[in-house]
């Protein structure tokens, strides 16, 4: 081999080396920490609280000596990066770049919490596959995630989700709607969603169910991320005499919909999901205008449910660690499953006796654990199974805001503390 040939050979070798995924070394040496990557929208309340919940779980596990992996114990170390994907105008590619930066710089063994927007989640699954990183998503909700896992298992087997997904949200909303129809005879609805994959999917799923179950859907509107005027829809709600408004929003501006509905004195029950209305301090923030609204809490924990003692303990301990104000700000989506995801990983490492990705995936698939969100088992599509009995499945719930600023759990019946009441402006 001549000099030029040797240089070409070295360059070729370098190119191959650089192009190989540079993720974490799967083998742990004694004293090495297990690294958890947390790429998420830290500016969203879901991302912010999820990250706090993860730090809480990490600290708890480390305080007990860490995670037993084979013969040695290892501390956990979590690193976050802000993907800003909840902000209008942030392209999917920017969020992916941030995620990959975290992977390359911190070399995590697993990824937790993860993507906020479904569009980013679907794209990031290829990153997880490329770097062979077990990933538990605790926010983004599109069911297409499961379809990808099922359709191309070998490629996407690293991806799991323990948060509620859109079809399960529809399932809970159906339960609420069945109740209000039976109890109060309501049958005319108006759906208002944000123009994102998960919210549109939820709205369309619910619209189909409504039509099959004797409801009249008087309108279906979508609003761009960042929209701040909902009066066109509310004018139509009034004109068409809709009795139930179903909002599906996780953007901060969605609180405006509630304020506008009250300002315009719309005599309809708001029952759906408005992210800013979920936390305990929403009554104060919205000066009581949340009165009567039924809001789904996607995973219990931010709302403690007595039937699930770990949800009560989580709620209390969150307040002790981060302060009562932070506890009262807890988002209705993300914190419970984010916290649980760290225990799910720790449990999987211990059972697999390694952090090697394929072994961790196998261990995660066999998970059967009691957590903050209820009983946690993954389906074949790597989605945690949700239902109405926390002894059998994970649990979401619906709360209703009542005077003097209390959230009452009203659905499902197995854990309900009260029944849904018509708000004062509908009587």
């Amino acid at each position, binding site marked *: 081999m001549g000099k030029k040939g040797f240089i070409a050979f070295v360059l070729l070798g370098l190119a191959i080396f650089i192009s190989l995924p540079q993720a974490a070394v799967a083998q742990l040496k004694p004293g090495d920490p297990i690294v958890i990557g947390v790429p998420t929208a830290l*500016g*969203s*309340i879901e991302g*912010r609280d999820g990250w706090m919940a993860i730090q809480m779980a990490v600290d708890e596990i480390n305080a007990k000596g860490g995670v037993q992996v084979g013969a040695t114990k290892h501390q956990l170390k979590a690193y976050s990066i802000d993907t800003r994907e909840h*902000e*209008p105008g942030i392209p999917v590619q920017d969020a992916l770049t941030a995620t990959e930066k975290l992977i390359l710089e911190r070399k995590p063994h697993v990824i937790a919490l993860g993507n906020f927007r479904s569009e980013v989640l679907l794209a990031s699954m290829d990153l997880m596959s490329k770097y062979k990183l077990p990933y538990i998503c605790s926010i983004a909700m599109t069911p297409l995630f499961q379809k990808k896992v099922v359709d191309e298992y070998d490629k996407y087997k690293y991806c799991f989700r323990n948060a509620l997904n859109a079809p399960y949200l529809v399932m809970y909303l159906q339960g609420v709607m069945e109740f209000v129809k039976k109890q109060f005879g309501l049958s005319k609805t108006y759906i208002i969603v944000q*123009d994102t994959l998960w919210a549109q999917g939820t709205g369309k799923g619910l619209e189909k169910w409504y039509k099959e179950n004797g409801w009249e859907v008087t309108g279906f*509107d*979508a*609003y*761009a991320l*960042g*929209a*701040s*005027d*909902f*009066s*066109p*829809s509310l*004018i*139509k709600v*009034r*004109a068409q005499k809709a009795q139930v408004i179903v909002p599906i929003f996780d953007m*901060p*501006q*969605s*609180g*405006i919909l509630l*304020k*506008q509905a009250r*300002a*315009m*004195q719309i005599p309809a029950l708001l029952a759906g999901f408005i*992210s*800013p209305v979920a936390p305990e*301090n929403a009554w104060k*923030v*919205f*000066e009581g205008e949340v009165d009567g609204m039924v809001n789904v809490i996607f995973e219990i924990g931010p709302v403690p449910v007595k039937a699930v003692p770990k949800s009560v303990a989580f709620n209390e301990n969150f307040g002790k660690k981060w302060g009562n104000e932070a506890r009262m*700000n807890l988002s209705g989506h993300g914190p419970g499953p984010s916290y649980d995801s760290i225990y799910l990983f720790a449990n999987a490492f211990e059972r697999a006796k390694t952090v090697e990705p394929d072994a961790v995936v196998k261990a995660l698939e066999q998970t059967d654990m009691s957590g903050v969100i209820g009983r946690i088992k993954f389906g074949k599509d790597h989605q945690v199974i949700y239902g109405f009995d926390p002894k059998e499945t994970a649990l979401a719930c619906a709360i209703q805001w009542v005077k003097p600023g209390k959230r009452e759990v009203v659905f499902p019946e197995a854990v309900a503390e009260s029944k849904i009441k018509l708000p004062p402006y509908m009587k």
Partner: protein
Amino acid sequence: MIPSIIIYGLVNSVSLALIAIGFSLTFGISGVANFAYGGFYLLSGFLVWMLLNYLKFPFILAIVTTIGVVGLLGFVTYWVILLRVRGIPLSEVIATFALGVGILELFRWLGFVTYEFTLPYFKKGMVMIAGVPVDYQRLFMIGIGLALVVFLYFFTHHTRVGLAFRGIAQNERTAISLGIKSDMTAALSLAFGSAMASVAAIVILPLGIISINQGYEVLLIAVAVGIVGGLESVPGILVASLILGYAQVLTGVYLKPEWMMVVYLAAIVLVLAVKPSGLFGKFKELEERV
């Protein structure tokens, strides 16, 4: 449905006019397109919120302080940033846009990103107008919008500073030859425009929440209304606000709400293609006719 469309279309139009009028005033007098306008708007909202929640100011005092501080910031902006690039439109736009983005992103960095940031209503409650409920805050908005227009008319026609504003706006060189100080007048126009952004924020933000992205949206609204009506024309701003305000509500009601934002962009493209000076603008009218 028609009374609701008329009333809420008017409310929407007045909110657009409130947002755009400060931007228009500054441009009409000094020729400076203040692209920090959205930043000043949002700064006003957060400043009132901080004065109320951190320093426990009474509401009225928080409002007056905020309008004063933001007006002063506009004044200082002229002397510190704009003086050096005055007369170079592209540099003016870049400098003010950078300042606006800096303000907005500073608040994002400081964590002012969630839904907790709301301003109180001036007065809670509502009245029925033609069978349509309208809350007091929206009525205040309409009242303050009208009061601002009347104030601007009297200010620019019956005070020394206002007459200086008009003098500079009509012909800067002639105004200078009569002893009017160009830079001071321009700085004052920036201060007035910024203070008006502040008034708009204090009146409009109680209807929703204070979110960073509104800063960018407000700038788009101000530019769109200005381009449609004529950037330097107050009557043009009013007419454009009515056109865009009703067009938006009608789009939301009869077409799709997600297209409401497109109304601004379509209006900008249409007016620039047909009458670049805007409906009431004069700056390039002669060139357009030729």
